[in-house]
């Protein structure tokens, strides 16, 4: 065995467990040991869980009995906004620093049923708002490729944990790119599923019409395994969708040769030159392997980011109104009830959270709701139609995941410049379509090799096409 157990993929670990070269407890110990050694430097985990010996023993029994669940006995990292019964779920906010989950999120229930183990809860931007984890109330996570740089965000802790082999794989959540962008910055795979594919029950809400839970993993195959384990209709989330809602699923395995749409008009100027070169080179190799490159136009897409930064804060200000020091979380007491609300919210929320709550309150206020929120909602409908039309000509649409590689801490202190980095990822959240980021090599900054990602979007419920093109990209990386 060349690889250390914690460096394995889900597939490798599952097969090593079954060949009896490794016990579940050895795999847990290897991961847990790596976390304890490296986490002080990276701050990927906010809390490291003690070994659950009953769960480890049960998983070992299932493996020995020939259980087919590949996740059985696999240690995973979970973003701090996903509820695990009895564990703190703080969304990296002072507001919920003492909140202990009273139930399991549906995705956690499904992972427990599959026999998976949980190493700890991972760092993130507060309430998932940010692209760097710099907005965590508990200190930023560092990028394992260069600790002077951000890991991306908001699921930066999950991405750094997987990239540094402090977990076999992880769960994150994605509202505007929060799985895909950190996956790209850390050199791993990240999937935002179709809106409604995965239950949001037990996910601390940010933008409810945009949020999806999804996997971060070392390979596309692992991503698929984790996605298959957590997806499915759920009575506890009325927005979950049945299979085939958007038409018959494509034949298993998907088409071998895919038509890749490239919106050239959106790629001018905003992208770093070496990122653009890597993107073009990856597409060239895909074309040589039999995939077809098609020029497409998505004119409304230039407005997607503006629409997103209206709709998202509107939903944030609404969702976070429930945190008022009354029911749970931080409770600061003043003289009157209103003082209690104001003191708790002022003390509990960090700066970026307050900024977005105020922005959301503004775009929803009477007098402005037509100019901002309703207009953004209309843009969203047009955008979705534009993508639907494009998908009559192509199977997937390609972008670089980000315009630049991971930035330095403090480099984007002006909020708008941070928001602009989400330009390629937000559209999938607005349209509800699934999207994946897959590593496409490295660029150099300040003498360090930094990973970069290629991003594909597919029609609703066409995750299979994303896995197919993702595996094709992995092959080009290996050649």
């Amino acid at each position: 065995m060349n690889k250390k157990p914690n460096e394995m993929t889900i597939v490798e670990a599952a097969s090593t467990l079954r060949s009896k070269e490794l016990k579940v407890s050895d795999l847990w110990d290897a991961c847990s040991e790596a976390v304890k050694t490296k986490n002080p430097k990276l701050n990927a985990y906010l809390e490291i869980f003690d070994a659950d010996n009953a769960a480890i023993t049960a998983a070992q029994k299932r493996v020995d009995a020939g259980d087919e669940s590949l996740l059985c006995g696999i240690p995973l990292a979970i973003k701090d906004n996903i509820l695990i019964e009895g564990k703190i779920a703080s969304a990296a906010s002072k507001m919920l620093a003492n909140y202990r989950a009273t139930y399991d999120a549906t995705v956690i229930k499904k992972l427990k049923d599959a026999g998976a183990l949980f190493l700890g809860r991972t760092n993130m931007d507060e309430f998932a708002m940010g692209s760097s984890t710099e907005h965590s109330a508990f200190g930023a996570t560092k990028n394992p490729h260069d600790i002077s740089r951000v890991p991306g965000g908001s699921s930066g802790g999950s991405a750094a944990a997987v990239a540094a082999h402090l977990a076999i794989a992880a769960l994150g959540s994605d509202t505007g790119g929060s799985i895909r962008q950190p996956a790209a910055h850390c050199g791993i795979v990240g999937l935002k599923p179709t809106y409604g594919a995965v239950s949001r029950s037990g996910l601390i809400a940010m933008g409810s019409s945009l949020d999806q839970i999804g996997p971060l993993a070392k390979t596309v195959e692992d991503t698929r395994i984790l996605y298959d384990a957590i997806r499915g209709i759920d009575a506890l989330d009325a927005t979950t969708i049945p299979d085939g809602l958007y038409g018959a699923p494509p034949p298993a395995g998907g088409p071998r040769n895919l038509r890749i749409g490239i919106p050239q008009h959106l790629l001018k100027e905003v992208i770093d030159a070496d990122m653009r070169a890597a993107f073009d080179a990856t597409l060239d190799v895909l074309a040589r392997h039999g995939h077809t490159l098609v020029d497409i136009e998505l004119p409304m897409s230039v407005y997607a980011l503006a629409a997103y930064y209206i709709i998202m804060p509107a939903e944030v200000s609404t969702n976070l109104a429930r945190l008022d020091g009354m029911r749970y979380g931080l409770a600061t007491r003043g003289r009157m009830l209103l003082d209690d609300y104001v003191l708790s919210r002022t003390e509990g929320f960090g700066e970026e959270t307050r900024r977005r709550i105020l922005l959301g309150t503004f775009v929803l206020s009477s007098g402005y709701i037509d100019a901002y929120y309703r207009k953004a909602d209309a843009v969203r409908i047009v955008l979705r139609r534009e993508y639907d039309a494009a998908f009559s000509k192509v199977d997937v649409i390609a972008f670089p995941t980000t315009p630049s590689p991971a930035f330095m801490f403090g480099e984007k202190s002006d909020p708008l410049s941070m928001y602009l980095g989400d330009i390629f990822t937000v559209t999938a959240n607005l349209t509800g379509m699934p999207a994946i980021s897959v590593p496409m090599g490295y660029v150099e900054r300040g003498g360090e090799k930094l990973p970069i990602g290629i991003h594909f979007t597919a029609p609703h419920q066409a995750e299979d096409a994303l896995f197919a093109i993702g595996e094709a990209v992995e092959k080009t990386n290996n050649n």
Partner: protein
Amino acid sequence: MAATAKDVKKLAALARIKVTDAEIEKFTNEFDAILDYVGQLEKLNIPRNLGKEKPPLRNVMREDGAPHASCVYTGKLTEQFPARLPAQAGEGGHLVVKQIISYE
């Protein structure tokens, strides 16, 4: 659309958040830049009836079912209300709340 310091103060009051004077100035400047950016939608000409079309939503219905027995989750939930637990727990798990109406 430009945001003024007065707007930000008002928004903070609506959102039940206190902002310091220094923050008001900072937020006002940042909101100007952000609103300027998102304000590009204003020049967009989108057909008026578009938003009124049937949205791609479905009604989700289910049969009424038997609810769980009353109070089975009460203890677990009230543990998360530390600031509101009555000194002498019991009394049907009631929570102490603050006076709302002022007599002044």
